[in-house]
C-alpha cells in the first residue's frame, strides 16, 4: 500500500514539464517577466552540488510569487545546464528585486521531463532553493523563497 500522498508530489507540481518551454541559458533573459517598470540587472547564480549520476542536465524553474510557485502560474525563467563532475551552474540575469524560489530536477535520462513511476512518484532527483525540504510534497514557498537585490545572489543547492 502506498502510505503517503505523493500525488501532491506530482510532476506537474514540481516542474510543470508540460507547460514550461525549456530555454537555454543564453536566451533565458528573453523569458523574463515584463512586470517590472524599470529594467533591473540583478543576478542569481545557482550552483548545484552533490549530483550522483554523471549524465544529463539540471533543469531549473524560477518563480517570483507563491501562486506561481504553487502551480497557479508560470515560472519567470527556465533554463538548464549540463552536469559536469557532479555539479552544474546556472546564471540568471536581469532580474527585478524581489522574492523568488527555485524548483529543479536532475534530468538523468535527458528526456526533458521529470521521470515518474507508474504511481506518479518522482524517479529523478529534485531540489528547491534554500535546500528547502519537501514533506510528502514539494517544499513550500515559505521555505524556498529568497531575496534578490542589487548585485549577485548565490544559491547553492544540493540535488541528489
Amino acid at each position, binding site marked *: 500500500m*502506498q502510505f503517503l500522498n505523493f500525488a501532491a508530489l506530482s510532476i506537474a507540481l514540481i516542474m510543470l514539464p508540460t507547460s514550461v518551454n525549456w530555454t537555454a541559458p543564453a536566451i533565458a533573459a528573453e523569458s523574463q517577466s515584463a512586470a517590472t517598470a524599470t529594467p533591473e540587472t540583478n543576478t542569481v547564480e545557482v550552483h548545484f552540488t552533490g549530483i550522483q549520476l554523471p549524465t544529463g542536465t539540471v533543469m531549473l524553474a524560477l518563480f517570483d510569487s507563491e501562486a506561481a510557485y504553487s502551480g497557479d502560474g508560470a515560472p519567470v525563467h527556465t533554463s538548464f545546464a549540463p552536469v559536469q563532475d557532479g555539479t552544474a551552474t546556472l546564471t540568471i540575469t536581469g532580474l527585478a528585486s524581489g522574492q523568488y524560489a527555485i524548483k529543479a530536477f536532475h534530468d538523468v535520462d535527458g528526456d526533458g521531463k521529470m521521470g515518474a513511476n507508474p*504511481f506518479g512518484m*518522482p524517479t529523478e532527483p529534485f531540489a528547491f532553493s534554500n535546500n528547502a525540504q519537501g*514533506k510528502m510534497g514539494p517544499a513550500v514557498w515559505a521555505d524556498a523563497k529568497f531575496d534578490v537585490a542589487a548585485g549577485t545572489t548565490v544559491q547553492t543547492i544540493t540535488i541528489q
Partner: protein
Amino acid sequence: MTITLSRRQILSAGTVAGAALFCPKLALADTAAADWTLGIADVEADIAPRALRRVAGRAPAGLVGTLYRNGPAKFRRNGTSSGHWFDGDGLMRAFRLNDDGSAGLTARFADTPKRRQEARLGRIAVPGFGTRSGVGVAVNGPDDTNPANTSVILSGGELLALWEAGSPLRMDPDTLETRGFKTYRPDLAQMPFLAHPRIEPDGRIWNLSLSGSTALVWRLGADGALEAVETIALPRASYMHDFTATARHLVIVLQPWIQDKFSLPFIDSLSWRPEEGTQVLVVDKDDLTKRRLFELPAFSFFHLADAWEEKDGTIRFDGCLEPTPMFAITGAPGYVRGEHIHAPAPMLNMIALHPGGQATLTATSISAEFPRNSANHAGVRRRHTVHVGLYRDDRPLAQGVGIWDWARGRDDAFDFGPRHLVEEFLFVPRAGASSEMDGWIVGNTVNIDARATELHVFDARHVSRGPVCTWRADVALPIGFHGTFVQV
C-alpha cells in the same frame, strides 16, 4: 484489567479509526506484568557475529544453512516513539547453522534514509503506517519513510529486506551490509512492493504494488531479474498486506478495510466497512485481463498461505482471519507503549472458491498466525500448514507453534508456555524429502526468563515432542516478523 469490546460495539463506532480513538484508554492492561515487553524492546546497535550456545538436544544432521529474519527493533529515541509496532527500524538477523553442528548469530540494522534521518534528529519523526510525522522531517518519496522491516528473500544473489509501501532494500547476504534500494528499472524506482511475494517452486516470483484501487503486478525470474510488470484495476482500495497464488492464478483478497480518505498516519485513512463483505479477485497469471470476483462475509487478515487449484477448478487457500482489524488499530500500537490491548486472536480458516462462482469459508478450532507451508508445494495441492498460535487472552503474542493437518483436522503443536514469546517458524525440507513434511521447522522464541533469543528446530513430523535442538543467544532481540531459510 482488560476490557474486550464486542464486535458489535466496535462496529457501532462507525469506523474502526473512530474506535481507535477510545479503545486504548479503556483497555490498559498488564502494566505490572509487562515481562513480554522484552519482545518489543529497542536494540541500540548492530549485533556482531557471535556463537549461539546449544542448550538442549543435538544439532540435526543435514540441516545446514542460514535462517534470515527481519523485524522492527528500534522504536524509541529520546522520549519519542513509533506510533505502531509495524514502524520500527528493520533489524536483519542471520542465524547460521553450520555443518559441524555449531550455530551463530549476526544482526544488522537496515541502513535506511529513515533511520539515518531519525538518528540525526535524535527523535522518531518519519511518518509511517501508524506513526505521525514529526517537525522538521524531510520526505521526498516513499523510500524516505521505508523502514525495510517486514520480511526478507534471497533473490539474484542479494538479500532483499522487504517492506510493503516502498522498494526492497539490498543487503549483503554474508555481512548484512546495506547496499541501497533495489530498482528493477529506472521508471520503477520508489514503487511499493509487498513483503509477501509468492514464489513458485521453480523460483519465479510474483508480487504486487498497491496504490488505492490500482495494483502493479510484478513477475521476476528465478534469477531475480525483472520479467514483466503490468497494472491492473482492483474493485476497491482495500488494505492488503499479503495475497496468494495457485500455479495458474493470483488470488487477491480484498478485505473491507478500505482507504476512503487521505489522513496521516496512513492507518487513519482506512475505514472498516463490514457490510461490504470481503472480495476475492482471481486473475490468470498468463492473461491478467482474465479475472473472476468472489464474495465472502467480512473478515480482516494479514497473512495467507499458498493456494492451489483442484481438478474440478476449485481454488483453495488458508489464512489467519480476524473478525475486525482491531489488532492492527489498537493492539499493535499498544505493544510499543507496553500496553496489552486485547484483540480477538486470528483463527486458521480454509477458503474455497468454487467453479460455479460461490465462495466458502471453513474455520478450524485453532488460533494461528504466520501461516507457512512447504515452499516446494507453493501453488499445488498440499495438506499441512505451519503456524504459530496458542494465543491467550491475558498475554500478547503467540506461545506455541504447530502444524495443522487439513486431512485429519488436527494440530500437532508444542506449547512453549508463557515464559516464551514465539516468532514465525519455517518449514525446511530434508534433502531428498519423501513427503510434504519430511524435514524440520525452524524458528525463534524470546525466552523471557533467560532474557535471550533462542533458535529451535523441530522434527516437522513430531512437533508436539518438542524441539530436537535449541540454541541460545547471549542477547534478546525483539520479536521479528518474517524470514527465509537458505539451505546450503
